């Protein structure tokens, strides 16, 4: 059987196609991600190119309203940037940070969770205590504190330059315990299996057993939480940017666009805030719905529905 046929006849695809909500959210997500990453090609303007921006164009309403121009479909922001283009570029930044942060937290979490679960004993007790304590502080608070500390240490100017890697680090460090706990739980279950025993009898080193034998079998729950974690990371990024600890105004993400727009809401200029807000909610909602479906499909008993 060819790979294509295998995919076509797989249980996963069948289950997926039968769920209209999952197909719908996958489609929305695909459109959003494609639009974000193709933004340099499809966006009508380049919001990073200051020479094409005219301050006289600022705060223009969407094209279908009085005073709107067909050049700017969704209107312009306070600096005269085309809102549609800025949203597309901003979404790319948000998605990049979201995925980057999840890769970092997954790496940290898998490494710590695997070590903790396999080695056990005092190290395990210590690492899980640390994870417990950090989780009890709520990831938002930890992220806000780390962001605030970085910003104070490095100053506003430098912070703006390296905002993307900073945000990835801040959100990554704030959320690793989720992964560590999940991985540890499945490692503890896998450790008792006979194939691990067999690998040990053959005399494989611990590191090989951990990474090559146990980890592949412990990956399902990691996949399940990964989708939700991407949504969470995008949300954290937006929140951090909104309170001024994230992306600078010159290179806006969805969160900082909302922040820019918020200052103009009181004068009735609602579109600068509303359109990036809708895109952000759509993005997070699509990922969450897909994550829900994946969780139900892969392991109906993993969570209690709460």
């Amino acid at each position, binding site marked *: 059987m060819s790979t294509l046929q295998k995919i076509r006849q797989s249980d996963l695809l069948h289950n997926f196609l039968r769920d209209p909500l999952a197909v719908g959210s996958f489609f929305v997500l695909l459109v959003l991600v494609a639009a974000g990453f193709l933004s340099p090609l499809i966006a009508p303007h380049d919001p990073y190119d200051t020479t094409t921006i005219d301050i006289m164009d600022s705060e223009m309403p969407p094209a279908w309203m009085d005073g709107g121009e067909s050049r700017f479909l969704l209107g312009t922001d306070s600096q005269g940037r085309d809102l549609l283009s800025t949203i597309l570029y901003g979404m790319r930044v948000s998605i990049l940070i979201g995925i980057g942060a999840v890769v970092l937290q997954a790496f940290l979490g898998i490494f710590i969770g695997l070590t903790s679960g396999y080695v056990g004993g005092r190290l395990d007790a210590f690492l899980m205590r640390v994870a417990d304590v950090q989780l009890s502080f709520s990831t938002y*608070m930890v992220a*806000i504190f780390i962001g605030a500390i970085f910003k104070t*240490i490095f100053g506003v100017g430098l912070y703006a330059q390296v905002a993307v890697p900073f945000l990835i680090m801040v959100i990554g460090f704030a959320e690793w315990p989720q992964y560590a706990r999940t991985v540890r739980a499945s490692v503890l279950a896998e450790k008792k299996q006979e194939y691990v025993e067999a690998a040990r009898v053959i005399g494989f080193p611990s590191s090989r057993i951990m990474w090559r034998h146990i980890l592949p079998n412990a990956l399902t729950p990691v996949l399940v939480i990964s989708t939700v974690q991407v949504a969470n990371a995008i949300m954290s990024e937006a929140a951090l940017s909104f*309170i*001024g600890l994230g992306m600078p105004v010159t290179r806006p993400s969805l969160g900082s666009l909302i922040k820019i727009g918020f200052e103009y809401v*009181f004068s009735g200029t609602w579109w600068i805030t509303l359109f990036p807000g809708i895109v952000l*909610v759509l993005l997070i909602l699509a990922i*969450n719905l897909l994550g829900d479906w994946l969780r139900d499909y892969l392991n109906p008993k993993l969570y*209690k529905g709460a």
Partner: protein
Amino acid sequence: MFAFSVRRVAQAVLVMFVISFIGFAIKYAVGDPVRDLVGISVSVEEREKVREQLGLNDPFVVQWARFLQKAMQGDLGMSYFFKRPATDVILKKAPATLELVICSSFIVILVSIPVGIFAAVRPNSWLSRFLMGASIVGVSIPVFLTAIVLIYIFAVELHWLPSYGRGETQMLWGVWDSGLATADGLQHLILPSIALSSIMLPLFIRLIRAEMKEVLETEYIKYARAKGIAPWRVLIVHAFKNTLLPVITVGGVQLGTMIAFTVLTETVFQWQGMGFVFLEAVERGDTSLLVAYLVFVGAVFVVVNTVVDIVYGLVNPMVRIASRS
């Protein structure tokens, strides 16, 4: 039980110790208190003298011990910007934040319990399907966006409610600067409380629904029904009471999360609470105030979590036995 409590308290103390270390390390690494004190037009020798007087030339550990000792007495240093003790600044703003958290918790309790029970009892009715769908959407809307939309609708367009600030406040008992005592203050509270509760509502509705569904499947509920007890009594007295334990535990932990979200809500509504002052401190580079907030909020988290854990251990013996092994 005693041993369990002692272990939990010891852990809390250790965590506070670590927090104070992080706080002090930030203070040590960032900012120069001497320059903030004397300005730039003072000679190097005099600066050295001030440094020596303040004990800034002592080794790190000695200074940390001094910081700890002062922190125990509630002295977390002077705010560089306000020129007042940082603890005073934060304590003065604490009522604003706490009132916001209390009002939101109230909304969460009032709404999530009936909705959660309803969704569990009638899982197939269109209303509960709609409510559960709405709760998934609700989880995906960031709290600051809810807040902005609320402001735009109710303050900018309809002019029904004020858009920012705390309004008229009144001093209660000489220490508590309250917005609950005046009509104006209460009006200002409505929108921020709704915004803040919007982030917790979906979680609690889903939690209560899940726990309730599980309890309704049990034998003793069937027995109670068979005995002919009134349906509402079975629901409230027999079933709901047994869902309270997990709900209270999650509630206690989420109280901390709510404090984190007040930072966002307070920014949108220009609410003069602790979170607002904290962000101002970050903007101004007021390290002292930043560290004070870190230690203060850290202490709140640690105390809440420890109390919740101990109460949970009291009610549920499995917890303290499991932690013994």
